[in-house]
């Protein structure tokens, strides 16, 4: 096999490159004359304009085929996620720890709650209506103003002791902290067939912990999400919709000991046993209250 590549010196290469960049003999820059460059640029501009057009057309068609109120598929949203406030994440998930006697350790937590509940003030809920029925609030038409549907009010005061109105410290000061549990919205999701979905909090290692069960005060009472908040019709239909909340006031958290609390939502159509998703239908958090 013969050598097909002769070595070129660096100088030669540079020279070749310079020649490539500007070839005085043919007036070529980078291998093309100016007019060639113009032509090719024009071609590419045209080509890309057409391509962009086609792409835009595709997206336009896509948008046209999509229902503005309801997503086409909710494969991933079979069961709602559950979130907790205050939400402080550690390495493995929610980890909340504070010292009863040290203000500074929990003041942030209560502030988080307060900020969160600000969205549930009567003012911000004023576009919603009061609902009293304990049944699903189905709305066929768009009877609310601006071609929308009505949303039911959920105001912070429904959380009573955990509303921050009665106890601005949400019980953190006394070691009986309030946690607010929120169920994620899913369009047209009906959590259960008859009874309202209910929050149930317990120690994760309940059976072994044995002796003492977690005692919880739920607000609203029984820790239920009233059925009239369901179904959710989506942002466009219910622009003022607010998630119903449940507050859990943990009454007997052992001090100076890390416990894992899990709050599940008990409802027919809410599952909490997805091994991959630890926030589906339940929320787990570590809690450590020091004295």
């Amino acid at each position, binding site marked *: 096999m013969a050598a*097909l590549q002769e070595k070129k010196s660096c100088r030669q290469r540079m020279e070749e490159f310079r020649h490539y960049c500007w070839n005085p003999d043919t007036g070529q820059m980078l291998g093309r004359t100016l007019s060639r460059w113009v032509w090719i640029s024009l071609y590419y501009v045209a080509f*890309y304009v057409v391509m962009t057009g086609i792409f835009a057309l595709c997206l336009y068609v896509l*948008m046209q085929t*999509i229902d503005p109120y309801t*997503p086409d598929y909710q494969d991933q949203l079979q069961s709602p996620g559950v*979130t907790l406030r205050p939400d402080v994440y550690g390495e493995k998930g929610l980890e909340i720890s504070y010292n009863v006697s040290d203000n500074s350790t929990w003041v942030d937590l209560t502030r988080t709650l307060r900020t969160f509940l600000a969205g549930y003030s009567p003012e911000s809920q004023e576009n919603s209506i009061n609902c009293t029925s304990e049944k699903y609030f189905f709305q066929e038409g768009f009877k609310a103003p601006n071609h929308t549907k009505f949303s039911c009010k959920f105001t912070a005061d429904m959380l009573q002791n955990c509303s921050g109105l009665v106890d601005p410290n949400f019980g953190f000061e006394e070691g009986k902290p309030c946690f607010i549990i929120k169920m994620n*919205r899913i369009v047209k999701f009906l959590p259960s067939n008859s009874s309202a979905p209910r929050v149930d909090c317990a120690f994760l290692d309940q059976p072994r912990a044995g002796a003492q069960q977690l005692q919880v005060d739920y607000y609203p009472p029984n820790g239920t999400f009233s059925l009239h908040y369901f179904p959710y019709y989506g942002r466009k239909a219910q622009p003022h919709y607010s998630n119903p909340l449940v507050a859990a006031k943990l009454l007997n958290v052992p001090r100076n000991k890390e416990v894992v609390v899990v709050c599940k939502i008990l409802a027919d159509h809410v599952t909490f046993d997805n091994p991959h998703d630890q926030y589906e239908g339940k929320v787990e958090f570590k809690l450590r209250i020091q004295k």
Partner: protein
Amino acid sequence: MTRPKRPWRPRPDPAAPSRSRQRGGSPTPDPLPEPRARGFSAPRGVPGRTSGAAAGSWAGRWHLRRAPPARAAAGDRPRRCAQGPRHRHLSPADLAAAAGPDPAPPRRAHGPRSPQSRRAQDPRSPQSRRAHGPRSPPPEPTGAPRPQHAPAATHRGALRGWPVEKPVHMCGEGPQAPRPAPQRLRAPDGRLWLGWGYVDACGLRSPPVPRHREAPAPLRKSASGQCCTLLLFQKTLEIYSVELSGTKEIEKTDHGNDRERYRGLKNNCLELRKNQRKEELKKELDLDDHKLSIKELEKKYGTDIIRGLSSTRAAELLARDGPNALTPPKQTPEMIKFLKQMVGGFSILLWVGAVLCWIAFGIQYASNRSSSLDSLYLGCVLVLVVILTGIFAYYQEAKSTNIMSSFSKMIPQQALVIRDSEKKIIPAEQLVVGDIVEIKGGDQVPADIRLLSSQGCRVDNSSLTGESEPQPRSPEFTHENPLETKNIGFYSTTCLEGTATGMVINTGDRTVIGHIASLASGVGNEKTPIAIEIEHFVHIVAGVAVSIGIIFFIIAVSMKYDILDSIIFLIGIIVANVPEGLLATVTVTLSLTAKRMAKKNCLVKNLEAVETLGSTSIICSDKTGTLTQNRMTVAHLWFDNQIFVADTSEDHSNQAFDQSSGTWASLSTIIALCNRAEFKPGQESVPIMKKVVVGDASESALLKFSEVVLGDVMEIRKRNRKVAEIPFNSTNKFQLSIHETGNPDDKHFLVVMKGAPEKILERCSTIMVDGQEKPLVKSATEAFHTAYMELGGLGERVLGFCHLYLPADKFPENYSFDVDTVNFPTSNFCFVGLLSMIDPPRSTVPDAVTKCRSAGIKVIMVTGDHPITAKAIAKSVGIISAGSETVEDIANRLNVAVERVNKRDARATVVTGMELKDMSPEQLDEVLTNYSEIVFARTSPQQKLIIVEGCQRQDAVVAVTGDGVNDSPALKKADIGIAMGIAGSDAAKNAADMVLLDDNFASIVTGVEEGRLIFDNLKKTIAYTLTKNIAELCPFLIYIIAGLPLPIGTITILFIDLGTDIIPSIALAYEKAESDIMNRKPRHKKKDRLVNTPLAVYSYLHIGLMQALGAFVVYFVVYAQEGFRPSALIGLREEWEKDHVNDLEDSYGQEWTNYQRKYLQWTGYTAFFVGIMVQQIADLIIRKTRRNSIFQQGLFRNKVIWVGIASQIVIALILSCGLGSVRALSFTTLKPQYWFVAVPFAILIWVYDEVRKLLIRLYPGSWWDKNMYY
């Protein structure tokens, strides 16, 4: 190192001359217990060409033909070096002296005078061919420049009749020699020949003085054979050494005046010591075993010629010396090969990626113990990819290498050895020095052996020396030089006939051939054109990958992305850009083609050579055995004043000449009777032309011819019992036999004679015309000469035939003929006819040459043969096409002096080695560029190198065919060396990149076609593979810039590159040529790149872009239908990727947990993947052609493409549905309709490409064509 050109410098040894004189004078007494057959006793039952391969192995060699006149000059000077013990140091001077054409006795005066030399000078010896020279005008048209060389005379003489012509073949050798024939005309028994003639440049040999009258003939050959051998060997060694130290020197060497060279040699021989290597070589050849008596040998090697070695002793020696096998050419250790695969090509990039992954992981881990292991895994996956593809490529290559090695190991060699007083058959590898081995016809000599006894043993040294003449071997010490003496048999040469017993004196690499082989193995391989192309491609892709990666790294950093994230992006970009599977695909593609070619009898040793053949622009083809059938065949007959054409096709099926004449009846009888050749028994079912014949080539040709025409020749011979015979010898230059007539009532004896036409004519007084005997008048003689000249001018070997019915009264039935006293008439015969033979071109060759020509490939014939023969064959196969003329032809036609012809008018030229020697490189370039049809005749091995280099200077990719050991440097020098599988020696096969299993030139054309096809198909494969890179890359870029959730994951990309795309890209290797690829010019190795700008631009910026858009559409559709509209996705990345956000709102106000989003992201990956896959199907289809419409090409012609498409879909389905649950792979089961979202884009791609092709076809050469045709 600066290489002295002459490898050996003899040490002056004052003692030597006397010793050698003494030895020369009295040959070693024969100590053998067995009576040596001295008479004409060669067992003729031994087939001359027992093994096809062995016999063929000398085919087409580039022999050194005649010694240049320089040698003569050299001879005149005091030979300081040469006077040393020549057996010790084989100096070129020695060689020159020994072989030298030096007819001048003075030179001998300085050296020891051997009896042979005396004989050589014997004025009575009929050796001088020159005597015949003047008699017939030289028929060669090209002869003009040559006259000053003695050899020219040879040529002329040669044409005249066979005796003379032999020299032409032997020395001229060449290439055709193998078979050939001519040389075997004489009695097959070479042993008789004791004489050792000095020959002028191989041409003239001194006639050996036959010791036995019965077998006088053989010698001529031997002498010249030896001479050639020597010269050749010398040259061979030189070539190797030259090759070792670079080729520049060769040019110098060869361009330099030979005279100077040899003179210098002698004068400077003392200075040559420096080269260590040469020194070793010298030692190698420091062989004096041929001079020792058997007793001494026994002592030296501790053996016993009757009992042999003891097993224990043999085992000891075996342990000491190692097995008797050539160390295979230095191979790259497997480990290195493997590692090379691991770091070659894109692997480096992937390694970088993997290391970056690990670094990123390390940093992450250091800062946060709980960080995800993703980057660790990704790094591992990348490494795994590198290793797997590396292993795969390694395996592929090993497999193809195995094809080759299995080929060479097909027949394990055995040796019959005497050990412990018993004859045993052991593998030849286990031989040790001192073993007593027996060889017989057909065997390979299993080691270097010193002969102890022999019966009619003749060996074919052609694999060593390129000399095609069988060499007699006998126990006598006949020459100082171990290479010349007859009592040494060399490893790997073939014993053609007879039997011999010998003592092993060297084994393995210490043998002479082992030494040459080890020298040759030092020549390094250069990169093949395809390797360079692939490297170029890797550079382009790596350049793109790295530059885009770095640009976006900087962008990412300046967009305030975390450095770690930026590194991850960088890795993603690299992975997206690197076509991981491509190199493996290329390997598979090449090996598929290699397999296909192997089926067509082209065995490819070096995978990459598959393509090299396709880019070949010049083929330097050997003549014999490649272009020709490698066997003498009757081509023309002349009788009744008419030339008849015989069928020379491979099967001889159609002998259409007029057989009704009475002359023919007589002629055919002579042909059948005056012939000693016989079919080897046991071949009844073999077609006549394929039967193995015992006898030399010309006689075989005649035998087969008469067998075809007359039927059972043996039966005819039986009917016409032979009562006496004078075999051919060089003195008489005829062969005669006396037969009873077949008719029991006819008591006449018939004397039949054949021989050199002019010799035969001399002995005739009448001529037969139309079956009637007529007096030989002047007009008849003239007709004879015209015919003779005409046939001779065709480069054919002409024989004359005559007969005589002895009067029954003078020669009664019981008459006792005595061939010694010749008690019967040998003149006043009746001349019957002429018959000419040639080694005819293979029937497939003219067509193949035409194809090559239309493919823009210049076919140059480079042969050692005589210019006239070469030109005749060149004309008949079309290397010189029908309409072209050489300068000499034009001169002849116009009847003007050659000088007055305008050289530009001639398209063809025949350049002889002599002329070539005097040419400067510039002149050679001129010849190579100015003439489209070139024949180099009478070339030496070095000149072959010069020619190859000359071609390469013009940027041509040169293919060289060859078969001898001495060809191996040229084979290596060539861009692609092609060795003959049947005739080729192992050394040639080792040096070559490709082996033609059927020795057939037409196979080269097949190879060229395949090579071109593979180049085109690789282009398609690469275009196909590159296209998706943009679709894989864009997601990362968009992700970084627009903050979309990542559309496709790194792992998913790997699944495209190594999963769905692999089989389709291999399938493109099965694509048929879209146009007649044999009608276009070979690609220019520097201009026509595998990956050129249009290819990259079109793949990346056109189709790639469409693919990216199509895939993005699928992605957006999936996200939009699940709740995230495209507008919502922009800038969403940050929130999206936060593990802590478990209530991310989509466009509908729904809230998503982290895992739900992840799952959606994977669905997006899968969708993007499917989008790319679907469009890759379209891409695959459009890549079937580059210019033609798909519909012209046929959508379904390449079934494998559809297998590829099916595999793509099936793999995607498996990944999506089957493995959708394996989280780590991040595939999900996709809704069926998403599989079709990209289809419109796939159609768009197809349509766009059809439009592109249409415009290219409509407007060739246009702007569009230039920019869009890749």
